[in-house]
Every structure is written in C-alpha cells, then in structure tokens.
C-alpha cells in the first residue's frame, strides 16, 4: 500500500469507515492467521479475532505508516497468543489431535476447501514442525510481517544480533530437512 493511500485508509478506519477496515483486514488477516498457525494452530482463529478487536479499541491512538502498522498488529497478535496460552494453562484443557476426528466427517467438504490454501498452509506446517518456536517465530515475522530485523527484535524482546542468529539457524535447519536428496552428489562415491 502506498504511504499516502495507507494514511487515508488508516484515517478512515479510525473514523469507523467499514470500507477502510475491510482494506486493512484483507491485507493483514491472512498474514496474521498464518503467523499464528505457525506458532499455535489450535489457538490461531480465536487469537486472530481477539487481535483485531484489541486493535479496534486502540486504533484511534495509532499513528504511523504501513510498516509500523503491520509491526503493531503482529505485536498485538503475539501478545494475545501469550495471553491465550496462559489462560489455557490455567484451564488445563487437553488438546485433541485432528486424527481423532477422522471418523466424524463434516457435512461440508473441508478437504476441498483446504486444498485452496494447501500451499501456504503446508509451508506454515513445515515451519512449525521443523523449527523450534523461537526460530519459527522470527522467520514467520520476517516473512509474513515483512518486518526487518530491528522490528522483529523489538516484537520478540530480543537483540537484533540474536534475531539474526535465530533466523540463520532456522533457515539452515529448514534446509537440512527440506533439501531434496541430491543423487548426483550423494551417489557419487567414486
């Protein structure tokens, strides 16, 4: 979004214009949801809804550009996720794996719907499955939020150098697990 355009959209959203809220939501909702799914798929939907409501309460006080707004939203999302986890710990709920529901098919066709977002979701699932939480968080914030190292460092409360190290380790770890076997390399022994 161009800076002037974003400024107009933000101002209108702060006034409660629905079209402006829709613009912001369409831009950020998929990123926030993927980010949250990459950290905690069970909480993602609820936390994302909470994130928007929290942002709605304080959007009147926000001033800044597109990039800062994104950083602000991801900060709220991360804080909400931490709150959600604390609440869940107090509630002592048991997370049920999705396999439990194989024998209880839904009436609609979730598989067909899921195919639409398979690539993005598969990528999120890979990041979540292969990386420790802190590395996944840094990489997701950088990729989905489009944030730089300093902004990510501020969000996660770490130094920029630490963020760079986490990012580097995360990329390397992904490469270790995702790299296709290279027969020409592995196979050549003589």
């Amino acid at each position, binding site marked *: 979004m161009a800076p002037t355009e974003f400024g107009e959209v933000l101002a209108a*959203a*702060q*006034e*409660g*214009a*629905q079209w402006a*809220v*829709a613009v912001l*939501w*369409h831009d950020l*909702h*998929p990123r926030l*949801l*993927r980010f949250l799914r990459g950290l905690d798929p069970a909480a993602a939907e609820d936390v994302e*809804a909470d994130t*928007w*409501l929290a*942002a*709605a*309460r*304080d*959007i*009147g006080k926000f001033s800044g550009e597109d990039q800062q707004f994104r950083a602000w939203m991801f900060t709220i999302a991360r804080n909400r996720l931490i709150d959600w986890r604390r609440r869940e710990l107090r509630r002592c709920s048991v997370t049920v794996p999705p396999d439990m529901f194989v024998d209880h098919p839904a009436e609609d066709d979730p598989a067909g*719907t*899921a195919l*639409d*977002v398979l*690539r*993005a979701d*598969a*990528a*999120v699932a*890979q*990041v979540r499955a292969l990386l420790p939480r802190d590395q996944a968080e840094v*990489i*997701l914030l*950088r*990729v*989905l939020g489009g944030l730089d190292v300093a902004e990510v460092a501020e969000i996660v409360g770490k130094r920029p150098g630490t963020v*760079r190290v986490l*990012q*580097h380790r995360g*990329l*390397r770890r*992904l*490469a*270790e697990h*995702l*790299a*296709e076997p*290279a027969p*020409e*390399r592995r196979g*050549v022994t003589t």
Partner: protein
Amino acid sequence: MTARDGFSPDMDPLALDARTAERLVAGSLVALDAPPEYRAVAQTLQDLRQPPESAELESGPVAVERITAAIVVARRDRPEPRHRRSRARVGKLAALAAAAMALALPSGLAVAGALPESAQGVASSVLGKVGISIPTGDKEPAVSVPSTTAGPPPTAASPQPQPQPAANGADTPAPGPEAPPANGPAGSHGGSGGGAPLSTANAGGVGHEPDGPPGQTNTHSHRP
C-alpha cells in the same frame, strides 16, 4: 571432494552468508536463483507469502463488520475521559484564577492605599521590606477627619499629609486625558498598558474610596 560442486568434504554445503539469508527472508531470492541446498527453503518461504485464497477470506464480511462496530464503540467511549479531563482542567484553572485574584486584589488595594487603616499599615510594612513603597494607613484618618488631625504639622518621618492622596493621582501620568499628550506616540499603548494597573486603579475610584465622596468630586473637578 564431491563430483558435483568441487567443494572439499569438510566444507559445509549448507553454509549461508548473511546476504543470501536476508534475500531469502525478504523474498527477493526466488527458488531457482537460490543456492541448490536452499531451493526448497526459498520455495517454502515463497509459499508462505502466497496471496490469500478465497477460503481464507470467507469470514471477511462478518469480521469486518464486527471490527468496525468495535472501532465505533471505542470512538464513542473515548471522548468521555477527555471531557472529564477537561472539566478537571477547568476546575484547576478556576482555582488558580481564584488564588491569583486573592493575591492580586489585596496587593492592588494596598498599592492604591485603599485598604483599611490597620491592613494598609501591615501591607505597607511588609511590602516596604521588599522594596515596594506604598501608602501607609495613616492617611485615612487625616482625610476623613481633617479637623482633628490637621493640628500637628507633618514631620519628616511621616510625610503623608492628606492632600497627597489627591496629588497621588497627579503623580501617575497615566490617568485619562493627560496621558496621550505627555506620552506621545507610545502613549496609546503605554497609557493603557504600562501605567494601567496603578493609574486606572486610582482613576477608577479605588484610590478615592478612602477619600469619600467629597474627595472624589474634588479630584475630578480639579483634573480638567
């Protein structure tokens, strides 16, 4: 040494320089241009950035409506604290103004010699200590009862014969019609600005109050 890339076996094939890492996460390095070991990583990160699919946006209208409603409610609720704050600010300002008036009024009266005798004496002695000379309270009896106090001649120690308050108005050049010719061009501002507090206090009647109605008529009658 491998046959494919010519690197020695002790070299790390997954070595990643900072610039390439930055390009990977920033999305400026597509999978085909990435180092072979990082092609899959580049593809995965590219998939993360896929534009939203229709399924992801299904909840849009409901969500947008709910968020907008929350913004409107927050906007409606927000002005209230501001009102409270402004009311509190107005209260503070009123208290400050009252305090300033409470300090300024007696001081003005004291400067004009319009306080009751005892209070004027106290004010004179207190302000005299800080270098401000104001009339003492002795004048009032002299004016109000000229026959009884006129006997003893004024001494050097107490040089406040009662005609002085009447002349007091003449000391300040500001009052009324005399000021403009005396002050010249600056008189318009100086007369109403610089000399205003004292002169207007005297001309406005504050200085005349102790004199009573006769004195007031006298000063006004003398001045033109």
